[in-house]
């Protein structure tokens, strides 16, 4: 099966939805692929269902979540085609997409492709993080949004950043008791972040909302422990206890659920498979897809918008999506340059405003050094069970970086294809060789990006 479109978009989050809605309005035949079952992306996951059948959960999730209903509705009305439950598992440099839905695989060609694949939680290896009962805070939040599940039992939250605080507040509103919030932000970060305060204050009400969330947590009496380091999860068949150091003392807490969060990082797997350029973002400590102000990656057909091209949050992503749509319409001859530029002004300014909070957040909540450089026994590659110690050993033997480490250790060669270990591996090699991470590089990404059977592969018309 092969179909043709003017504009094919991967990702139905704020960026992809805004792009599709505007592109359809500009007369482009557009389609959005997303492996989730409903539109909204990570932030607005299940927004239609929650608004329709679980409004109580909507109030707990808060106004920033409920905001998502309108863009989702606008997208539904727009006339853009929507392929839910559909994974994009390969992309060629000419933009041809290979997609898979319920055992059916096919290729799609489009004149212009937009990668709006969003972000994932930064994977931070620490001892015991593979135990059942340890997961991401965003993962637990996805269970609440998508299925109305809440954590149960002895629950510990560890980490830092806006999503960490937000989820703690959401749990407090839902009446879910939390044994402790283990806060990993280092105290001297605040001093450094002060330099970025003036810009942050001009970014809108992010700071005010952050402070109000902290007040909400204090009022709710959630136990908060700051200056936490050296986290580890202990158990055999599942989590039993969380250990950490605070105030120079080692502590142990009984727990059956440990939720961890150290910010989000771009989901670059598709853009890397397509051969787009990537650069190391030093403040954010992640790789991002390089693109210009319109999202164009310079590869000819492929653009990138939203969190996958650098973390900016949902509102910045929405404007980036619109800019990519305007540029697509221009490149496909539906808008002249003057009209594109005129219509882009508002979105450019608004995106820039939302981005002003980022230097402040990046400085306040960098992944702490003890998490970037976990102890030797830590499984860094979850799939192939390669430890930090093994990586350091092969580095000492002369292994230069992640791609060679694959041959030495099979690191990054399991089903997640390095998504979970890639950043940690790069940090470990950079330290071992005494060079910046930008010089170490990333795993070469190879298709298929998703599990696909030989039978499904055979169906793809090549």
């Amino acid at each position, binding site marked *: 099966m092969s179909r043709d479109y003017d504009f094919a978009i991967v990702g139905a989050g704020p960026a992809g939805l805004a792009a599709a809605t505007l592109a359809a309005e500009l007369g482009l035949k557009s389609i959005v692929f997303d492996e989730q079952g409903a539109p909204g992306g990570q932030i607005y996951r299940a927004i239609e269902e929650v608004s329709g059948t679980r409004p109580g959960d909507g109030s707990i999730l808060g106004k920033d979540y409920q905001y998502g209903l309108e863009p989702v509705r606008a997208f539904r009305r727009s006339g853009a085609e929507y392929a839910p439950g559909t994974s994009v598992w390969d992309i060629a440099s000419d933009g041809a997409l290979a997609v898979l839905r319920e055992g059916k695989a096919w290729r799609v060609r489009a004149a212009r492709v937009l990668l709006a694949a969003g972000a994932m939680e930064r994977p931070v290896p620490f001892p015991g*993080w593979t135990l059942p009962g340890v997961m991401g805070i965003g993962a637990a939040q996805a269970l609440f949004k*998508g299925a109305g599940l809440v954590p149960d039992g002895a629950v510990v939250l560890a980490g830092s950043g806006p999503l960490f605080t937000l989820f703690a507040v959401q749990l407090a509103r839902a009446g879910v008791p939390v044994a402790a919030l283990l806060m990993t932000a280092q105290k001297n970060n605040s001093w450094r972040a002060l330099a970025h305060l003036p810009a942050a204050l001009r970014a809108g009400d992010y700071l005010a909302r952050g402070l109000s969330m902290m007040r909400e947590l204090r009022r709710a009496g959630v136990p908060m422990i700051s200056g936490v380091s050296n986290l580890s999860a202990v158990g055999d068949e599942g989590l039993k206890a969380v250990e950490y150091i605070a105030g120079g003392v080692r502590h142990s807490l009984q727990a059956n659920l440990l939720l961890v969060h150290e910010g989000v990082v771009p989901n670059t797997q598709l853009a890397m498979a397509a051969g787009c350029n990537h650069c190391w973002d030093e403040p954010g400590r992640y790789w991002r897809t390089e693109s210009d102000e319109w999202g164009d990656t310079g590869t000819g057909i492929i653009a990138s918008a939203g969190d996958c091209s650098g973390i900016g949050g949902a509102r910045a992503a929405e404007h980036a999506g619109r800019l990519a749509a305007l540029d697509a319409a221009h490149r496909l001859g539906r808008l002249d340059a003057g009209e594109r530029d005129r219509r882009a002004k508002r979105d450019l300014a608004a995106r820039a405003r939302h981005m002003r909070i980022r230097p402040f957040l990046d400085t306040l909540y960098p992944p702490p050094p003890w998490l970037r450089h976990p102890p030797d026994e830590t499984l860094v590659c979850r799939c192939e069970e390669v430890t930090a110690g093994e990586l350091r050993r092969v580095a000492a033997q002369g292994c230069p970086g992640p791609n060679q480490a694959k041959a030495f250790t099979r690191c990054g060669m399991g089903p997640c294809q390095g998504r979970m270990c890639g950043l940690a591996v790069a940090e470990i090699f950079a330290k071992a060789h005494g060079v910046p991470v930008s010089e170490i590089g990333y795993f070469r990404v190879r298709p298929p990006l998703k599990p696909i059977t030989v039978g499904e592969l055979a169906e793809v018309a090549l």
Partner: protein
Amino acid sequence: MFKRRHNHKAKSITVYLEGEKLAAREGESVAAALLAHGTGDFRRSVISGGPRAPYCMIGVCFECLVEIDGVANRQACLVPVREGMRISRQYGMREVAPEIVP
């Protein structure tokens, strides 16, 4: 680890985990249904045999791989439940799909 919040109006659906009947809700993922049921491990590591369960819930960690209606290596966090679905945890050594392609 997780429980259902009360205010859920969605239709109830029956799925089977290794023959055992589970009540799931329409629209939720297989991973959500198993976690709500109290399933501890979804699979075993193919290297050490250690227990594994969903980590990311957004399709990137591949810890949630289960067999669904006879097809191995499905991402439980992305597949919605369907009436009568048969699910088994992956306990054997198993080559995972991305590697079948040279």
